């Protein structure tokens, strides 16, 4: 097999810029989706009836629609509806955020409902308010229990950023396509990209797992 990795060496800066944007988009999407997911999850559990119905619809919709479709729709529909141009990076960030936040909301709901009811009753018995019970009793324990699921969501989010290439966000996958297209070396290019994604995601998920191993006892109730 005739392999030639020289196009990758010649274009390392170009690919590095793509990797930088992948990391930026991943971090931003993880943070934003966790914030939104927390709000949606708590709103679904403790909000008024009309809000719960709305949020259930949002969660079920996002779980039923591929993130690719969400991204493309946001990229094209928002400018047509609003009349304003939209940078692909923001379209990708918004699309990935609203898609992943639905999963985060369900993980939070599952984490909170896994805490024994007796703890809520104990909190009420000593005069704590509902918000205090959620903040001081439920969330700390539930967060520990949710860590493995969060680790999966973080790795999925990082991988989802590769889909942003379809709307021309110049992240790693998109830059790799350009190098592959101009060098006619797709095998070498995409093998290297596969290794890079592994080197980025594997340590993150291992770190979360190891952290969970150390704090798991805090989530027992």
């Amino acid at each position, binding site marked *: 097999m005739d392999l030639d990795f020289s196009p990758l060496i010649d274009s390392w800066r170009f690919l590095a810029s793509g990797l930088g944007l992948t990391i930026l988009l991943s971090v931003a999407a993880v943070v934003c989706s966790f914030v939104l997911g927390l709000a949606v999850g708590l709103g679904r559990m403790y909000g008024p009836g009309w809000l719960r119905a709305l949020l259930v619809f949002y969660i079920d919709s996002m779980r039923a629609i591929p993130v690719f479709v969400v991204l493309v729709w946001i990229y094209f529909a928002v*400018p047509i509806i609003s009349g304003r141009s939209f940078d692909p990076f923001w379209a990708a960030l918004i699309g990935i955020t609203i898609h992943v936040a639905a999963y985060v909301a369900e993980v939070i709901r599952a984490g909170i409902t896994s805490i024994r009811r007796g703890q809520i009753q104990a909190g009420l018995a000593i005069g704590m308010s509902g918000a205090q019970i959620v903040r001081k009793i439920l969330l700390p324990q539930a967060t520990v229990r949710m860590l493995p699921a969060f680790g999966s969501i973080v790795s999925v989010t990082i991988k989802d950023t590769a889909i942003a290439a379809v709307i021309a966000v110049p992240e790693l996958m998109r830059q790799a396509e350009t190098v592959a297209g101009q060098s006619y070396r797709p*095998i070498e290019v995409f093998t290297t990209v596969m290794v890079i994604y592994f080197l980025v995601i594997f340590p993150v998920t291992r770190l979360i797992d190891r952290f969970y191993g150390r704090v798991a006892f805090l989530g027992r109730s």
Partner: protein
Amino acid sequence: MPSLESSVLALTLAACIATLASPVKADEAVPINSPRVQTIQKAGVFRVGVLANPPWLVENTSGSGEQWSGPGWTLAKEYARLLGVKLQPIAVSHETKVPVLASNQVDMTISPLSVTPERLKVIDFITYSATSLCVFGRADNPKVANAKSIDDFNKEGVIVAYYTGGGEEHWVKTRFPNATLRGVSTAGTAAPVEEIMGKRADITPINRIPWVALNKKVKGLKAVPESNNCQDSKEMGTDVGSAIDKNQPEFLAWLKAVEMRMQPELTAEEIRAIDKM
């Protein structure tokens, strides 16, 4: 004292000499009645959709120097110069390079597009080049090694790969009705090379111009028709160029007029780019 007649004659002569001595660039008058031109000049930027497609639009991946080059870029720079605005490249993908025109995210797509009947329904072209198709496969594949013409592939048992949504899709479907067709998503290359190298398909179409570079960089391939390294192919001869959204007649006419003036320069640049491939 010189007579009025001789003074006028001297002035006229001087003007003629000045005109002949300094070449005047005949800039086409910008159509200020075009809504698109008004929007561009108000915004101060000419937004162009870019996606590398050598030799017409080449992206510099070395990390230094001008990011874009090629006839498509040269033409876009000239448009921006004449409009008196900045040229702003906006990245597009194969999936978005046409829809971005209708959604007004760019003023023009300069990612080179082949003229096809389907595309002509939704966009207008400013063409500056022409090309045709070859097909290629592995040279060690008996179906390819023994083929004398493209007609030899139009039979059962031959698998033809192509990019879905690409300019060659319609040609593949009409040219090879008896073969098995395998549509794949683009991976950024000029042709689904990995389908051939992975032996999932026997042949795939490729534009004759990128074939020159592919043949240099990837060994063990064979193109049909073979004569002159496939450069004499007459299969699906198409024009190639940039595109704008429909219903912009004044803007289109102006763009085409500028392109006509620039044509010799663009052709020369294309030839240089092909030599470098």
